[in-house]
């Protein structure tokens, strides 16, 4: 209910604003033409009326035009071949308007100029009218935005006849014949050839030429043209993520960027993502996450960003690209740029809304009678007596998944208003989304508000700001462990009813009654609220030509507040609570970062140089408090207003702490290119951090990259199909400090080691570990080699990269002998990991004469990960413990093996009869029907020495493909993602193939029962004397998959149907629609567990306990542009 109200409020707000905007338009309707003309006339004034000094002595026209551009900032657009032939221009004018200068310059040429408002176009004077009776007219629009396009060149193929569109994108052209073909061209857009075919009205929409290499990528503290990038950077534009029902940034990148592995951590609404750029170089969690930089702010959390507000995402992958972020770029940098208004575009009003449903993936469990039969069999085989007499009596029973799941819902509405004039641009946006998870009670909602603006105060002073507020609220469900909700509750015994005929709760043998739990939770009022204010303000000075000074202050101020109320309840004698209780906790963080940079850019003949230097300072501080108490007033379960700590009468408890760190960094970068052919970038960064002791605070991180644009060399210049061919290479060293606690260098005691003496509480404390004052920066050294190719009229582009990345001085807690009594071993610089890989991405896009446009981008990457060294005599670091399975650890990081490789016995089929058991190495407890394990060391017995690496959770290849098709007003977009060659430890086999407390997976019906049976599921035995369920290769499954991640069909209503609407598009989307995989579990897309103090996350990969799988969603949406 609350949701609807907020939604209505938001809509009201939008509607109010839009009506106001519209009424303005309506009021001016009569003078529309006039005012539009005036508007543009003003703009023309601005460009054409600018004063300029110009002097040229026998110079090329091109050079003179360039001077005008440089001096006035005017955008002159022309084809080189048109102006190239004028190379002896003489002019000497002082303080003249551009208009006058152009008139002078073009007087004796066959060129003319035309101002569109945005550009001044230099073009050929129209040929004298031929005797032609036919006139073709129409409007040219941008295919994506629906905006009309002024200044588009239109010519009749094979003639000199041509024109340009006017300020409103309209054209009218006399043509020799209606059988001719028109050519539409515009800078930055694909040239379009349209046969007239007898028509007199031809509206066309043009596609931006995404593969031209002209687009800009955002690099650290600046930007660069994509074609000039010599390191490794992948970019995703707003167009590519538009309208995907993506809550989180990472989701929009899935399958779109080579070398980046992205998996959703769970189906919990609002779930975070695991993002690994070029493998992982550490066993520490935090140090495997990339750095997210939003509009230059390096402290933003991706979960607080609305995807609808993103303009572009650039993923900096190689060390030479991330090095400018030094210590923070070790795992790649995701640069996010949010949208801003465009000058002279008029007010743009956009609304996008979608609404959809979600479907859970269900586990095929057996019904009650089969459960009873199988459980009895397991008991009997274990020497116990059967528990369920006459299994048939239980019939189908209860499928607890019916209780757990519901159709989920996903809704989103986002609106934006943007615009600006020459001096100022603005973008104001809001987004509200809500997801009701497929598991009851799980939900997530988030509100994002953003105001971005940019102002040119004077010609040498600019200021800007980006401010975003987000507030989310979530209720999740634990996942990723054998005791999690999933492994446990959905597999409750089907023999128990939800409710007994007398209305009392059905009693389950091993678990709480799920329905009772949900009814209780509905009344519990739990959840986490997260309000975050983040943004930046910047000031930019251009005191001298080519010199820019910039100061940007970034801040993030947020809180994460959890509350939990548990009422008194009685479900059964074992499932009850006699004391109502309430707990509150809050983390709040206050982080700031101040970046000051100086940038100098100049061209000396064929030498182009840009130098950047800067200083950044950053401070992070987080505080935490919590309080809890119990015994609330008796009716607090009905009245929310009673659920306050102060209402509780006993058991008050409080906790709190704080932690912070600061960084000070110096950075420098030189970009150099000679004649656009030989390019070089050199970075140097010095990072200082308070996380290290005073001895080793600073780390020094150099990097460079070189590029050779072979296509500019004379021997390739004439090869037509090559537009751009560049060989790139680089090396860089970057630091990492993320694994460290803030005070890892210092030794401290842990409190809370208390004891009661005869009921008297006495506090205790002791040091659990010790600090290491000699810690220094972890270092990552990476070599990158790449090749970029664009060709065939800019329709194809190919990027190929090879990298070799070595992590040295890995910061980690290296286990030390336990007899030291040290609980937390100190952090140490130790260990070495090597990641090697190859990345290929290929793009192709094309418009065919029949208005059919399509583009396909595909990428594939290959990465290998290997631990090459560990300290302290450690030959393996232990990862995930598997207490339930009864083995020590499922994953290990062993020298010579990948991080988190699976470890265990090698299963070798099933003993079919006693003589097979007898002839095998001694395997205590084994009987026919049990798993046979390999005696790897041939000592005649199966012992721990026979354990070995049994699987690799990392894929050999991961790949993605996006394809966009549009035909007339229809568009179809699809995204595929997948991986190949990774193993999954299907731990759910333990749970659902005989782990005692759980219902059976239907595959368990095929368990071994008699000699000669072909099956890979051993006999059921409640006591498991053979240890069938120990960690072994029996659990290992191939995790390869190919998924149709996103499929969208859209229809844009023709422009002339609705007045005053720039764009109206409706679309339907399905995500997670189809998965091709041999994996027998719920879902091969496994992220990692998101929070646990005891498990090291990177070591928790590829283990599937049967988790909250990512649901499929089906949405319908609408885009409106006014």
């Amino acid at each position, binding site marked *: 209910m609350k949701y609807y109200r907020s939604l209505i409020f938001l809509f009201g707000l939008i509607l109010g604003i839009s009506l106001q905007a519209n009424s303005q338009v309506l009021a001016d309707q009569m003078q529309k033409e006039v005012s539009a003309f005036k508007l543009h006339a003003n703009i023309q004034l601005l460009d054409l009326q600018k004063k300029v000094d110009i002097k040229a002595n026998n110079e090329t026209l091109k050079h003179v035009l360039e001077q005008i551009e440089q001096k006035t900032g005017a955008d002159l657009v022309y084809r080189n071949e048109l102006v190239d032939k004028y190379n002896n221009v003489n002019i000497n004018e002082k303080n003249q308007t551009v208009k006058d200068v152009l008139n002078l310059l073009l007087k004796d040429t066959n060129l003319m100029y035309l101002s569109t408002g945005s550009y001044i176009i230099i073009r050929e004077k129209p040929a004298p009218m031929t005797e032609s009776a036919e006139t073709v007219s129409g409007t040219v629009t941008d295919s994506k935005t629906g905006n009309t396009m002024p200044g588009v060149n239109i010519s009749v193929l094979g003639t000199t006849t041509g024109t340009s569109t006017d300020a409103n994108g309209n054209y009218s052209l006399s043509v020799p014949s209606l059988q001719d073909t028109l050519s539409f061209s515009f800078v930055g857009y694909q040239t379009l050839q349209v046969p007239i075919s007898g028509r007199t009205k031809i509206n066309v929409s043009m596609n931006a030429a995404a593969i031209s290499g002209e687009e800009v990528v955002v690099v650290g503290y600046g930007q660069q043209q994509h074609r000039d990038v010599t390191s490794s950077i992948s970019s995703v534009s707003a167009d590519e993520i538009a309208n995907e029902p993506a809550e989180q940034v990472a989701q929009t990148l899935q399958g779109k960027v080579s070398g980046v592995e992205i998996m959703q951590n769970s189906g919990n609404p609002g779930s975070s993502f695991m993002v690994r750029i070029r493998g992982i170089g550490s066993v520490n969690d935090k140090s495997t996450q990339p750095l997210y930089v939003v509009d230059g702010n390096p402290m933003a959390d991706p979960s607080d960003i609305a995807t609808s507000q993103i303009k572009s995402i650039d993923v900096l992958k190689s060390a030479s690209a991330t090095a400018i972020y030094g210590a923070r770029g070790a795992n790649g940098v995701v640069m996010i740029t949010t949208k801003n208004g465009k000058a002279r575009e008029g007010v743009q009003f956009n609304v996008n809304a979608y609404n959809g449903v979600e479907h859970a993936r269900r586990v095929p469990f057996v019904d009650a009678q089969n459960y009873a039969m199988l459980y009895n069999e397991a008991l009997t085989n274990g020497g116990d007596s059967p528990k369920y007499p006459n299994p048939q009596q239980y019939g189908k029973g209860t499928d607890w998944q019916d209780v757990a799941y519901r159709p989920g819902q996903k809704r989103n509405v986002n609106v934006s208003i943007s615009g600006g004039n020459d001096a100022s641009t603005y973008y104001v946006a809001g987004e509200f989304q809500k997801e009701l998870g497929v598991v009851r009670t799980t939900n997530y909602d988030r509100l994002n508000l953003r105001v971005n603006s940019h102002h040119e105060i004077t010609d040498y002073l600019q200021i800007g700001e980006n401010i975003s507020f987000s507030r989310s609220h979530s209720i999740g469900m634990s996942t990723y462990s054998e005791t999690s909700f999933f492994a446990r509750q959905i597999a409750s015994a089907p023999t128990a009813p939800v409710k007994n005929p007398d209305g009392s709760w059905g009693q389950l043998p091993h678990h709480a009654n799920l329905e009772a739990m949900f009814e209780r939770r509905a009344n519990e009022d739990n959840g986490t609220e997260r309000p975050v204010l983040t943004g930046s303000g910047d000031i930019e000075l251009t005191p001298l030509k080519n010199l820019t000074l910039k100061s940007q202050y970034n801040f993030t101020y947020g809180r994460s507040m959890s509350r939990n109320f548990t009422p008194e309840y009685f479900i059964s004698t074992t499932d009850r609570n006699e004391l109502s209780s309430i707990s509150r906790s809050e983390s709040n963080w206050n982080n700031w970062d101040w970046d000051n940079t100086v940038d100098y850019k100049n061209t000396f003949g064929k030498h182009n140089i840009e130098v950047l230097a800067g200083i950044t300072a950053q401070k992070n501080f987080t505080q935490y408090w919590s309080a809890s108490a119990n015994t609330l007033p008796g009716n607090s379960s009905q009245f929310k207003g009673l659920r306050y700590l102060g209402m509780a009468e006993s058991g008050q408890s409080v906790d709190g*702490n704080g932690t912070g760190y600061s960084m000070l960094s110096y950075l420098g970068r030189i970009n150099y290119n000679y004649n656009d052919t030989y390019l070089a970038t050199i970075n140097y960064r010095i990072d200082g951090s308070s996380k290290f002791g005073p001895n080793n605070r600073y780390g020094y991180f150099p990097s460079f990259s070189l590029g050779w644009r072979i296509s500019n060399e004379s021997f390739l210049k004439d090869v037509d199909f090559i537009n751009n061919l560049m060989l790139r290479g680089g090396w860089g060293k970057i630091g990492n400090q993320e694994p460290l606690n803030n005070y890892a260098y210092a*030794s*401290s005691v842990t409190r809370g080691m208390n004891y*009661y003496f005869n009921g008297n509480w006495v506090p205790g404390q002791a040091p659990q570990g010790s600090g290491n004052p000699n810690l220094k920066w972890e270092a990552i050294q990476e070599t990158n080699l790449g090749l970029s190719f664009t060709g065939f009229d800019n329709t194809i582009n190919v990027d190929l990269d090879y990298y070799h990345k070595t992590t040295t001085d890995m910061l980690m807690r290296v286990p030390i002998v336990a007899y030291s009594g040290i609980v937390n071993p100190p952090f140490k610089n130790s260990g070495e990991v090597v990641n090697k890989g190859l990345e290929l991405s290929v793009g192709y896009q094309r418009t065919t004469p029949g208005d059919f446009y399509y583009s396909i981008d595909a990428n594939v990457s290959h990465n290998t990960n290997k631990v090459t060294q560990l300290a302290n*005599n450690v030959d393996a670091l*232990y990862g995930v413990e598997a207490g339930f399975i009864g083995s020590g650890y499922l994953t290990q990081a062993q020298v010579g093996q990948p991080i988190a490789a699976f470890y265990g016995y090698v299963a070798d089929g099933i003993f079919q009869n006693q003589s097979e058991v007898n002839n095998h190495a001694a395997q205590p407890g084994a009987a026919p029907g049990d798993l046979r394990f390999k005696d790897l060391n041939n000592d005649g017995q199966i012992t721990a020495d026979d354990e070995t690496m049994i699987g690799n959770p990392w894929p050999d290849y991961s790949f993605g493909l996006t394809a966009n098709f549009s035909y007339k007003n229809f568009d179809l977009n699809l995204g595929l993602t997948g991986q190949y060659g990774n193993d999954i430890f299907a731990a759910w086999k333990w749970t659902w193939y005989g782990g005692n407390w759980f219902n059976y997976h239907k595959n368990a019906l095929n368990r071994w029962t008699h000699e000669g049976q072909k099956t890979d599921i051993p006999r059921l035995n409640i006591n498991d004397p053979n240890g069938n369920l120990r960690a072994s290769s029996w659990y290992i499954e191939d995790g390869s998959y190919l998924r149709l991640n996103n499929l969208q069909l859209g229809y844009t209503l023709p422009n002339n149907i609705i007045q005053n609407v720039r764009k109206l598009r409706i679309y339907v989307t399905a995500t997670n629609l189809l998965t091709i995989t041999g994996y027998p579990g719920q879902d091969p897309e496994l992220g990692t567990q998101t929070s646990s103090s005891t498990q090291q996350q990177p070591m928790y990969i590829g283990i599937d306990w049967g988790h909250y799988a990512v649901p499929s969603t089906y949405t319908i949406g609408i885009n409106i542009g006014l």
Partner: protein
Amino acid sequence: MKKLTLITLIALIAIGVGGCNGFLNEEPQAQIATSNAYQTADDASRAVTSAYYRLQANNWCCDAVDRNGYMYWVIDNVGTDDAIKGGESGGDQVYAQKVAYYTLTPTNRTAEEAWNNLYIDIRYANIVLDKLPDIEMDSDLKKRYMAEAKFLRGYDYFLLVQTFGDVPLVKTTDVEAYDKKRAPASDVLKQAISDFKDAASVLPTKSQYSSEDIGRASKGAAQAYLGKLYMWMGDFTNAEDWLGRVIDSKEYSLATDYGMIFTKAGENGPGSIFEIQYNYNPPKTQQNPMGVVQGSRSMYGWGFNAPTQDFVDEFESGDPRLKQSVYENGDTLRDGRVADVGNSPSGYLNYKEYVGTSEAPGGFFNSANNEIMMRFAKVLLWYAEAANENGHTQKALDALNRVRKRARQGNSNVLPDVTVTDKTKLRKAIWHEERVEYGNEYDRRFDLLRTGRMGDVMRGYAQKYNTPKGANFKDGKNEVLPIPAAEISLSDGKLTQNPGY
């Protein structure tokens, strides 16, 4: 104007840089530096408490490293003929089943947690011994604190030897490089003896402690453990001496009601010598999971540690202690509930760990009854055993019959006084009495091992009940647990594995 702006900006940057002096010096927040943590008497108290804190670490299963405990119920009960592992089924807590079946390997959690817990506690005791000498405080209290730490260290090393045999001997916290080898068990025991003796000479008696200090190591506790240690070594002369001192101190007596000993109300009673203390007092509750672990799956628990038929059969007919040690279906329990033992594989559950409704005001998961590690009856019986071995038959009979008299609980028709004087027969009678008096109280393994009976008893049990439990017990191997595999690897091979693992 332009220049002015420029100067302003440059000035701003300069301030930014200039203001950075000391920018990176962050004072650690919400932490007490180790260097400041040992200054006052209160600090000393906190240091000692941390060593006690380890006792009530999670002794049931596998928790985070800093919470792990010594799984007494697995090693000392389930690993013997006194109890079957229980739980949902054989696969439930498989590491414990492997201990019960003697199929455990060096990665077994039981061994790992025992090892880790005891050495963490040794470190905390060592910190007390290293740091307290420099703290200015009341010297008597300081001496007592250090004696308490010595008692705890002795307790840990004694348990380590019982569990693993030869183990590394760490006596201070100054050890920078941990490159020790396993010290012979005799050296480790020598250290434990010295620690216990130092403790016994300094610590107050139980009655000298004020009420709020009950639960701390006392003179009597140190003497009792010294006696126990000599029993382990087969040094009956010293055993008789030290256990005799406990008896002669008159500090302890046998509580009249045997059943009461194991209830909340019976905590720290007259016979109590050393108990692991728990208390329910939210939010500072220190709960003892044993109540739930050993409780019935059909009533409130998980049904582990099911007493065996063999244990039940050991009781003489009419012994009132039987129904105070185990319960079965239909028994009316002390809080009036009618017992349902759920799926107990033996049909019995351990009454000594039963928590009555009124004893768990915060629910059974928060039950907090103490765990009695040393009580007077154990001292009397071991004394009797030592006296018999030393030829002091009458003393042996007196001590033994003192226990039987209490056990009789006024019913003169049962449990007649033992009168046999033949050394061997009397030994058997005492062994029998030991088993029934403190069955499932974590000393069955100790008794079987020190008297050399373990292998025969366990294999005999397997044969008699046709079960894998005990069948795999190998003499010369299974007397000790394996050294944790990770530990051997971390020591770069300096630590060797126990034979057979």
